[in-house]
């Protein structure tokens, strides 16, 4: 049990990557806090599978809501060991077609939301804790049909660096886990067949990822084993973007 009794908040864990990470953490003995913005039913199903005691609605666009949620976690457990900033949205469009409303929404959730959560977790996260920000291949590569998402996710990498410097003295490691294209509902909704083909052509492992393939790196980054890894981006992308 590599995360035994660690209190781990995974934002946006009612489905997708967040759900897989929550399950992976629970399998390693963590006390996982599930959060959702609208998929209450799915969130409770995940909580059942992960034996989670806390399932909380969390909209990362609202600082008040974030404060309330972190306070509830603190009331229950007294502290937080790990925060995974996973909650995100994507609005795909060609660069010249992306609207300012779409841009604002994506930046507000995917970048400013991470900033808010990181600021508000500071009073609760233990020294030697971990913050894991979920980035994206789109942020590293500059996804051609995801201008706002790519900018937000690259911003998350810079925020990771900045926060790692700030929290180094507390031995809190801050890293970014950057998935490639994961086969699933999100990809189906946001990628056209020709974009999928282009994406596949970049990959050295000639398939999209499985959600479970994000878990190994997420567990490693949350565990005591990663105590000397900070300010880094771990790319789990099948070699789509080799750095």
């Amino acid at each position, binding site marked *: 049990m590599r995360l035994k009794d660690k209190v781990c908040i995974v934002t946006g864990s009612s489905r997708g990557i967040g759900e897989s990470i929550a399950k992976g953490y629970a399998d390693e003995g963590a006390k996982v806090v599930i959060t959702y913005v609208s998929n209450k039913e799915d969130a409770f199903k995940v909580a059942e599978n992960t034996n989670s005691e806390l399932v909380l609605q969390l909209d990362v666009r609202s600082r008040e809501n974030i404060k309330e949620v972190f306070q509830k976690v603190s009331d229950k457990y007294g502290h937080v060991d790990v925060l995974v900033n996973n909650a995100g949205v994507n609005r795909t469009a060609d660069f010249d077609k992306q609207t300012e409303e779409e841009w604002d929404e994506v930046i507000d959730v995917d970048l400013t939301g991470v900033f808010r959560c990181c600021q508000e977790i500071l009073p609760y996260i233990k020294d030697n804790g971990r913050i894991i920000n979920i980035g994206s291949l789109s942020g590293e590569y500059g996804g051609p049909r995801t201008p706002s998402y790519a900018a937000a996710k690259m911003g998350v990498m810079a925020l990771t*660096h900045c926060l*790692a*410097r700030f929290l*180094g*003295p507390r*031995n809190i*490691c801050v890293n970014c886990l950057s998935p*490639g294209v994961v086969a699933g509902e999100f990809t189906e909704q946001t990628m056209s067949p020709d974009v999928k083909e282009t994406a596949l052509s970049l990959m*050295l*492992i*000639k398939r999209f*990822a*499985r959600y479970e*393939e*994000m*878990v*190994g*790196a997420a*567990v*490693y980054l949350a*565990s005591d*084993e*990663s*105590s*000397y*890894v*900070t*300010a*880094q*981006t*771990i*790319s*789990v*992308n*099948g*070699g789509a973007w*080799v*750095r």
Partner: protein
Amino acid sequence: MAAIFVTGGSKGIGRAISLHLCSQGHNVAFSYNKNKSFAESLLDEAKNFAGKIFAVPMQVENRKSVQQAFSATKQNFNSNIECLINNAAISQEKPFLEITDDDWKNMHNVNLLGPFICSQEVIPEMIKSKWGRIINISSIGGQWGGFNQAHYASSKSGLINLTRTIAKIYSKDGILSNAIAIGLVDTDMSSAEINRQDGKKKIDGIPIGRIANMEEITSVVEFLCSESSSYITGQSINLNGGMYFS
């Protein structure tokens, strides 16, 4: 059970990797060049571990020596080498203008030609079994250069690109190739640097505020050897306490 081969395993980081993987139940072969007594003490230390351990003399820059060592390993474990950890390396501190052609060649022979030869010698069997892991131990020096280690920095930078190249060619065959770029850690190779004034200043500038310990290195090696890393290839995992950001 398949074998893991660690080059330069008798001392320092390679020794820690060999001991850790063996303690976790893996069959581990490690090579040594001149340090026979260290190799023997490692064999003794690991004799009651969950996995089996095997030591073999080898010069990484000599293809015949590598072939003999790999053959002996396969015979000993009656299995192929599924994970290769290219760890054997040398270092040298010299001002740029004083580095001789021989210094340059020796450095690249061990630190870059060695991993090239070892990788070439294991890849055909990995292709046959459609599964393999190549893990190259690189250094932060290969990412940001080195004032008095131009040849070392160059060899470690080359190793990162060899890692990417092998990933590009062989990931489709189930062979994942990744590097670990290590910052400062206390070994024979780095002790001079970290105990000097400039080394101490460097440590002060590390966001985590200290050098790495061996457990922090061995755990990421174990992760990259495992099935849990099945979608990670062509990457450098930076283990440097925040000295260099990616």
